[in-house]
């Protein structure tokens, strides 16, 4: 059986700079894959190439056998890849549950002209029930009718997660999910991500925080200067010489200099 997501020979150049070079990896249903690397390694570029914000110079992205390379973001979402943002991007004029309902947009089947005559209400009601379930799933069951402005940053991240799940994704992408969270919020989010993967949804995350991702990820891809230098289990990654040189080694030098 082939993987859910197949990334093949993906390359992105910005002028003379090669941000991502000949990158290939697989992601299976129900798997949590972390992409790590030092700043400028090409993590965010990879993320943007898959989610459709950037167009690759070469290479392919295939989801469930369908070539989705170079499609715009709304079509990527339409194929079942939903995402969260590093800096929370809620719809600020809406309540919490309405935000989740926007995530279910791609599931709506009533054609828009019919809506003007009042059709689609049953569909909307069932989407609302599901949105409430998702809020309970991420741990925000009592916030449905609150304004998003009342949520803390960590709760906002959970809302983004519920919103992404509302689109019934086959794959969900997290852009530095631990950034800005307290240790308790990190633990809560890690458990939510584990539960998501347990439902058979593929999880791709890019992350800096080793304490967050090493116990969470099933597999880790390490990038350095746009190239893949490792693709292995978290335990192996922590001991890989190339990874330590590229990633942890730099951090140790920094610490020595600071001290």
């Amino acid at each position, binding site marked *: 059986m082939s993987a859910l997501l197949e990334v093949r020979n993906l390359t992105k150049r910005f002028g003379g700079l090669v941000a991502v070079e000949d990158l290939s990896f697989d992601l299976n249903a129900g798997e949590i894959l972390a992409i790590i690397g030092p700043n400028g390694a090409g993590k965010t570029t990879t993320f943007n190439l898959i*989610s459709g914000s950037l167009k690759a110079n070469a290479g392919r992205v295939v989801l469930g056998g369908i070539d989705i390379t170079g499609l*715009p*973001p*709304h079509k990527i*979402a*339409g194929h079942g890849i*939903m*995402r969260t*943002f590093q800096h929370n*991007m*809620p*719809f*600020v*004029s*809406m309540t919490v549950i*309405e935000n989740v*309902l*926007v*995530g*279910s*947009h*791609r599931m*709506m089947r*009533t054609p*828009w002209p019919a*809506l*003007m*005559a*009042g059709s*689609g209400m049953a*569909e*909307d009601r069932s*989407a609302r029930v599901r949105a409430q379930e998702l809020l309970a799933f991420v741990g925000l069951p009592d916030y449905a009718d609150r304004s998003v402005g009342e949520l803390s940053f960590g709760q906002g991240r959970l809302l983004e997660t519920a*919103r992404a799940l509302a*689109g019934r994704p086959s794959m969900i992408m997290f852009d530095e999910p631990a950034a800005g969270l307290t240790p308790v919020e990190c633990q809560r989010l890690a458990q939510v991500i584990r539960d998501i993967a347990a439902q058979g949804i593929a999880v791709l995350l890019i992350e800096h925080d080793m304490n967050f991702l090493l116990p969470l990820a099933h597999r880790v891809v390490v990038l350095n200067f746009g190239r893949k230098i490792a693709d292995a289990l978290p335990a192996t990654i922590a001991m890989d010489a190339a990874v330590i040189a590229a990633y942890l080694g730099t951090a140790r030098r920094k610490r020595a200099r600071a001290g």
Partner: protein
Amino acid sequence: MNGAMRTATAWIGGAALLVGLTYVLGGYGLDIYRKLLLTATLALSYNFMFGFAGQIALSHYTFYGIGAYSVTILMTQAGWSLPLAALATIGISAVVALAVAIPANRLEGFYLALATLALAQIFIVALVQGGEFTGGADGIFGFKSPEIFGIPLSGTNFVIALIGLFLGTLAVLQFLGRSYFGRACRAIRDNPRAAAAMGINVARTNIIVFTLTSSLAAIAGIFYAFADRFVNPYVFGIEPMFLLVFMVIVGGTGRHAGAIVGATVLFLLPEFLGDIVGRRYILIYGLLVVLALMFQPNGLIGLYDQLRHRLARRP
């Protein structure tokens, strides 16, 4: 169902009240009432585009004019019947709206405002320079009221038709606003990037909203043509367009009730202020908009919500 029954009661009660007013008001009052119904209808559709979807376009009165002029020209000069002329008019306005929306969709915010402002100016120039076709600066007047199934669309009948237009526009926009489509519009206004990541086709949604609300303005224009049986270029100029923006902001953007309240207050205000300050009421409007933007961004309807909450909290 309790909720559905309450909604039905509100609609029937509202319609009865509006129809009742028709018979209470007479003469001058009835004329003001007709114009107010038209203005409130325009405010509703403009609010959907500007308030819900966040598109800053200044062509709403242009489409109102396209509606009024098309139906007038098709009926008086081509001799078409009202239903045929009305359908053709809706078609024409939709085509013009699409021709504006598709290229304008590459423009954002400020540039959409400029492009539609240019369209509005070109429209006025075209009407004034249109010779016998548009009646030039004098417009077209003196044509007779149409009939529908033998009932003349004049006097009270016409006011009832306007109430139908107003409530029909409100119903359509209410249904649409509450649906996933309305949520998509607000999502685009709040954050287009996040909206796209949720699977919303931002360009397509923007084009639909512009075309739909502009066509609703054109439909209101068809009715306008028979209000006084008179169409004139200056009725569809830039000044009433800015007044419409003021109405939506002062009333409360993104809320149907806000659009209705804003249109009512700003439309009726000159009737009371006119004797005191004359044409300078525009200055007062400018002040109101600045005050609303600074202290009450949710408009009069937001003020009403706050008062209601405060009263509800009191034991």
